[in-house]
């Protein structure tokens, strides 16, 4: 499919994803996520690993990946600084659906906090994986024309105001994948991702790249050294 302006929105569904390991490490801690690479350690570590393994197993039947994207001009979106002049930008909204979120809510409501936060983290990691899957499909269509894509930019991250979310939802018929926006510009289901990438021979570099390296919080437990 050609990466052309004015193309009809592309809906993808029925694909499967593996929750992103890196996101899980960030949310739950490296020593709990790297299962099988070492002795499980003490009873506490074993309990947490078991909860994460269960969450990963449960998530398989709870995740329903879907995504939609189209190509617009940078001027059509209220994007981050510098996007207005860009000729071709892919915008995408994707989700893992509602089922996992409802299970998390039930677990936490019943006081099963560890089970709830483990499954929630797996949901976040799966939403990232869905975004990556969609990003990869956009990359492939761009590559077919000898073009490359920038890193992802999302409303509410870095210097893109969360208000820009509304414009993305005006442009993309996200109801086709079951994603809606609350009056406060929040996506429902929560485990959804919206993003834009610049498509070009020489795509722009975003300020938000290498976010950990540029951050001063040296002792942050979520810091990723290799980012």
């Amino acid at each position, binding site marked *: 499919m050609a990466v052309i302006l004015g193309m009809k929105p592309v809906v993808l569904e029925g694909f499967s994803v593996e929750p992103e390991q890196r996101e899980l490490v960030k*949310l*739950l*801690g490296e*020593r*709990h996520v790297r299962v099988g690479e070492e002795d499980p350690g*003490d*009873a*506490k570590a074993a*309990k*947490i690993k078991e*909860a*994460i393994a269960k969450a990963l197993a449960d998530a398989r039947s709870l995740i329903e990946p879907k995504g939609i994207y189209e190509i617009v001009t940078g001027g059509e979106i209220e994007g981050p600084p510098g996007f207005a002049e860009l000729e071709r930008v892919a915008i995408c909204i994707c989700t893992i659906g509602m089922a996992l979120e409802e299970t*998390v*809510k039930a677990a*936490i409501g019943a*006081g099963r*906090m*560890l089970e*709830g*936060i*483990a499954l*929630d*983290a797996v949901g976040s990691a799966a939403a990232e994986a869905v975004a990556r899957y969609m990003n990869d499909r956009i990359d492939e269509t761009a590559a077919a024309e000898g073009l490359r894509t920038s890193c992802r930019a999302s409303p*509410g991250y870095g210097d893109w*105001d*969360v*208000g820009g979310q509304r414009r993305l939802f005006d442009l993309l018929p996200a109801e086709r994948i079951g994603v809606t926006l*609350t*009056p*406060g*510009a*929040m996506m*429902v289901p*929560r485990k959804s991702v919206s993003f834009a990438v610049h498509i070009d021979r020489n795509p722009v570099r975003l300020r938000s790249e290498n976010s950990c390296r540029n951050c001063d919080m040296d*002792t*942050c*437990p979520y810091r990723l050294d290799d980012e």
Partner: protein
Amino acid sequence: MKEHLEQCMQAIVDGDSPKAAELAKASLDKGYPVLEVIEKGFARGIREVGRLWEEGELFLPELVIGAEAMKKAMEVLRPALEAGEAAEKLGRVVIGTIEGDIHDIGKTLVATMLSANGFEVTDLGADVPVKRFVDEAEKTGADWIAVSALLTTTMPGQKRVIDELASRSLRGKIRVMVGGAPCSKEWAAEIGADGYAGDAVAAVALARQKTA
């Protein structure tokens, strides 16, 4: 008894709920003073968990199972507390995520940690109207209202809670703490909140420090 208190502390640090409940029961069986068991045993454990979390030694799952173990111990000890010695009243907190915002987990963690540390907590859930925060705080005689907002678009609701308190002349009586990813000390100062807490452990420290 000293060794027993050490074990109580360790059960919380280890996040071992069955052990914590067992030790709590043993404390009662042996006739140890309940307040001392809590303060020098279990509560010391949850404070240690908080300290390790702040230092980046522990991750979220460990904080959560520490709080769960604390809850189990307290379930066993609470009836004895209520029957006999006067419990140390740290204060009452009404907590929720502001209207328009359905993020729930961070707020629930704050509620769990406050409760594990001895505060009486009323958790109103997410998407809570401004008036409901103040109604519940009045009803329960709360010392604090803790308002979470995870979006820049819902943050103004935190200020409206403070305005509502002012309109009912409760501003000096009930304190307000704010938290959530987009919030900061500066934002708390700007809207006239009594404090900002960046995470569950900071919320406990703030509530302890300022509840007289």
